[in-house]
């Protein structure tokens, strides 16, 4: 296991200690618990609060999306493991501004169970809680079973839209509707070239031959659609966009935002080669691109691979997407 870490069991805590040391003006712990982080800036009375969380090992997911115009608090689990509902509850209590809490997170069994319990407990404190789960990974369940799909990099758009709506002081129902609409408008497909290594396990999450890639693999190494010989970047992108475009309506004249995400080890150069092809394919189909995000938005430690996300826009989504946002891991000022 080739990592620059200390004791594997300290990996999660030390990561967050580093983040808090680096960004004290942006993030702070709740009750000194490193698993519970909230925005460090002034709370805004009557603003809907957005709570997120999930397993560690995916930076900037999830804590990197806590900040102005995005989420308000996050609960961090162990690597690839759901955090505890007691911690989620503490975060919910800490971020509530009297306007209710939207729990926005990825659609995984453990997280679902824990967030449901947290919601129940917040409810007992008379805090209204709604839930939206990211389900953007088209490779994880067939069309028609969207609610079984995993949440991957495309959850970024749900944060962005819901967070902007909350900053605009929309009410909980409206923020929830927009978050769900963002999820419904988002489609992601990913490929993996190499596995990652969980610090405590010390071995690769899966094995793959030197000349192979896995199409549709999940960000925890969940099996994908098929394993093939390594394809060119252009062919890979064509394959991914084909899967995405078959899954949702896109037609000439439509506008989308594009997210090309690196899973960890893949260099930015390759992300741009992939974006080049995405851009060419969409141009051929007459689909406009409004805002592109190219970089690491949801990772799997040092896994090599990429995902491509299309976020279909309409007037209201576009306006919210364009709103500013600021966290130590993501800035959009124009």
């Amino acid at each position, binding site marked *: 296991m080739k990592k620059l870490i200390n004791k594997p069991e300290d990996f999660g805590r030390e990561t967050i200690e580093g983040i808090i040391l680096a960004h004290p003006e942006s993030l702070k712990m709740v009750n000194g*618990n490193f698993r519970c982080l909230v925005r460090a800036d002034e709370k805004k009375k009557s603003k809907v609060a957005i709570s997120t969380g999930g397993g560690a090992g995916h930076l900037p997911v999830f804590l990197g999306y806590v900040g102005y115009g995005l989420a308000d608090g996050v609960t961090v689990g162990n690597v690839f*493991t759901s955090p*505890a509902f*007691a*911690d989620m509850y503490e975060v919910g209590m800490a971020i509530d501004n009297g306007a209710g809490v939207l729990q926005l997170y990825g659609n995984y069994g453990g997280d679902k169970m824990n967030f449901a*319990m947290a919601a*129940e407990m917040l409810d*007992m404190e008379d805090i209204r809680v709604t839930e939206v789960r990211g389900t953007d990974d088209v490779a994880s369940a067939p069309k028609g079973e969207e609610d079984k799909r995993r949440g991957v990099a495309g959850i970024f758009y749900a944060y962005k839209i819901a967070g902007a709506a909350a900053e605009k002081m929309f009410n909980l129902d409206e923020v929830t509707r927009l978050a769900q609409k963002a999820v419904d408008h988002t489609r992601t497909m990913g490929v993996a070239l190499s596995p990652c290594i969980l610090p405590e396990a010390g071995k690769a999450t899966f094995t793959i031959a030197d000349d192979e890639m896995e199409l549709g693999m999940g960000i925890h190494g969940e099996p994908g659609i098929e394993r093939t010989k390594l394809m060119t970047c252009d062919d890979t992108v064509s394959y991914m966009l084909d899967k995405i475009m078959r899954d949702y309506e896109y037609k000439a004249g439509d506008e989308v935002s594009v997210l090309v995400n690196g899973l960890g080890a893949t260099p930015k150069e390759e992300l741009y080669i992939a974006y080049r092809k995405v851009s060419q394919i969409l141009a051929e189909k007459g689909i406009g691109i409004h805002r592109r995000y190219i970089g690491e938005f949801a990772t799997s430690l040092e896994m090599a691979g990429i995902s491509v996300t299309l976020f279909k826009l309409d007037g209201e989504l576009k306006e919210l997407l364009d709103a500013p946002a600021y966290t130590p891991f993501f800035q959009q000022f124009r």
Partner: protein
Amino acid sequence: MNDNIIGREDIKRMLSSISKVMNDEKDHLTELDSAMGDGDLGISMSKGFQILCDQFDTVEADDLGKLLMKLGMLLNANVPSTMGTLISICFIKAAKIGKGKKELNQEDLALMGQAAVDGVMERGKAKVGDKTMLDALVPAVDALSKAVAEGLALKETFKLAYEKAAEGVETSKKLKAVFGRAAYYGDKSVGSQDSGATAIALIFRGISEAELV
């Protein structure tokens, strides 16, 4: 034991008794969970109940609902594994029944048991026969409810619940796991007892062995 009524001190004694049992059976649980899981159950159960005992006095609450809520959260924050979470859910669900009460009567206990079962089934989606902790919890809670309905004494009630839980563990041997890590073993899981069900039986053993006030 005061008129089959449970108070704050009784809960403390139950936890201390469970903690002792879990500590004694730690290696056994580890062994069971290693065979069909990741082997953490012995540690998580003994650590979890130890923490509840250690921190019990720091939880200031006469309202037993609040007490159980805080204990559930304490367990959950410290033992986030599957069984830690499910038992925490039992605490939280029971807490709702205990809300506003300084004492619990037998009916309360039966309702709490049922709420715990419902909570685990609602959140975990498993049912009896899936080779999970439910295979011990459900018969134990059923026995509890039945004993309460029949007006048995608390001591007797807990003893019956434990016996049924232990029978459930035996039953689990014949079942095939479809939830949790054990599910990866498929047919190979048949023949060995479910570790989560075993932990539930140990909890009832602890309760039944507690010297209540």
